[in-house]
């Protein structure tokens, strides 16, 4: 009799667990990753440059956002000054003086990367849904010179125009294009969420927004220096 009850409870539990949808699985993963990130923040106070690069590029830490719209994927990467120094130095250890000097050099601006990728990752982005050679030339020209005017950063009530813009042109067939963006930093820059706004005229996707939360922007761990 007892055996039947135990068997019944076991099977019922098993079925109930199987009934949970896949989103719970994803939540579980996020929870696991959150714990991992928590360890970086709390248990280890400082991280080495390579870990810093991985940390910033990890979408779960909120500094890298992705948006899929139809056949395109838009990526926005917020680049903290320390991250830029780590990328430029390409060393496993950075001297304290070097880090401080370079961060100071960058401190007047705030930097982002914008990447537009073809969802199927095949073909050339600039030639996507292209009608003529003339249209291709116009796209190259727009990406190189005029797109800057269609990019803004909103911080609280301030709308900041894009003052540094560079289109990383790949001359081979690539399914993506990358843009390096810079915006002037104000004294209240760190007190607000930041919303990067791009108006996509080329592929008719309209206003593309990425919001970086104030809390997420402030949680970058400190870099271990020598």
């Amino acid at each position, binding site marked *: *009799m007892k055996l*039947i009850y135990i068997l*019944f409870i076991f099977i019922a539990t098993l079925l109930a667990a199987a009934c949970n949808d896949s989103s719970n699985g994803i939540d579980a993963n996020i929870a696991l990753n959150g714990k991992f990130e928590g360890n970086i923040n709390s248990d280890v106070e400082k991280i080495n440059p390579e870990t810093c690069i991985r940390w910033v590029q990890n979408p779960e830490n909120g500094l890298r956002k992705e948006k*899929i*719209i139809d056949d395109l994927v838009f990526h926005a990467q917020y680049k903290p000054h320390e991250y830029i120094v780590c990328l430029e130095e390409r060393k496993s250890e950075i001297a304290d003086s070097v880090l401080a000097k370079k961060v100071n050099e960058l401190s007047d601006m705030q930097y982002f990367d914008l990447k537009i990728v073809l969802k199927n990752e095949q073909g050339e982005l600039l030639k996507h849904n292209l009608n003529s050679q003339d249209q291709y030339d116009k796209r190259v020209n727009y990406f190189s010179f005029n797109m800057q005017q269609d990019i803004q950063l909103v911080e609280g009530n301030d709308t900041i125009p894009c003052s540094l813009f560079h289109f990383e042109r790949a001359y081979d067939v690539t399914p993506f294009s990358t843009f390096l963006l810079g915006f002037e930093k104000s004294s209240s820059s760190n007190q607000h969420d930041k919303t990067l706004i791009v108006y996509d005229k080329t592929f*008719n996707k*309209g*206003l593309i927004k990425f919001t970086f939360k104030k809390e997420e922007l402030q949680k970058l761990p400190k870099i271990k220096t020598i």
Partner: protein
Amino acid sequence: MSKTITLLFSAILLGLLALVIYQMKTTPKTGYVVIQDLYNGFEMKKEMEKKYKTTKDARDKILDSLSFELKTIANQIQLEEEKNKETIKQFEIKREEYFLRKQTFEEDNEILTKQYDQEILTQLNQYVKDYSLANNYSYVYGSDGSGALMYGDEKNNITKEVVVFINSKYNGL
């Protein structure tokens, strides 16, 4: 005897439980949205409307200014006892410019409306798809009063939830 009944009862209960779970898993989850409410609640639509109005207002100002100039010249011609050929020529040039600009602006406004509509719909469709996938919906119907959806139980109306979701997605949160 008692043991057999308990065993039988447990087996039936287990079978029923399995059936309910199977039904839950295999029945497609459906919901519907009131398209007009969804569209009007979409922040991108409101922002694009403002953007369009700014452009249209700027164009209207140019037309108003041209129209004012045209009226001034027309008054001048009317007041002249001897009609000045130069003024009449100037009036005709201005009038032609006005009608040409008006036509161009009307066409451009129409193109802009279509372009903005397409941009809004592209993002709206994507975010509704994202919502459906995130919430395991097999079907989300659109109620627009055209008869495509004749009736939907109010408990399956997910418009409010979808509006919140699509605005969050649009703002890149």
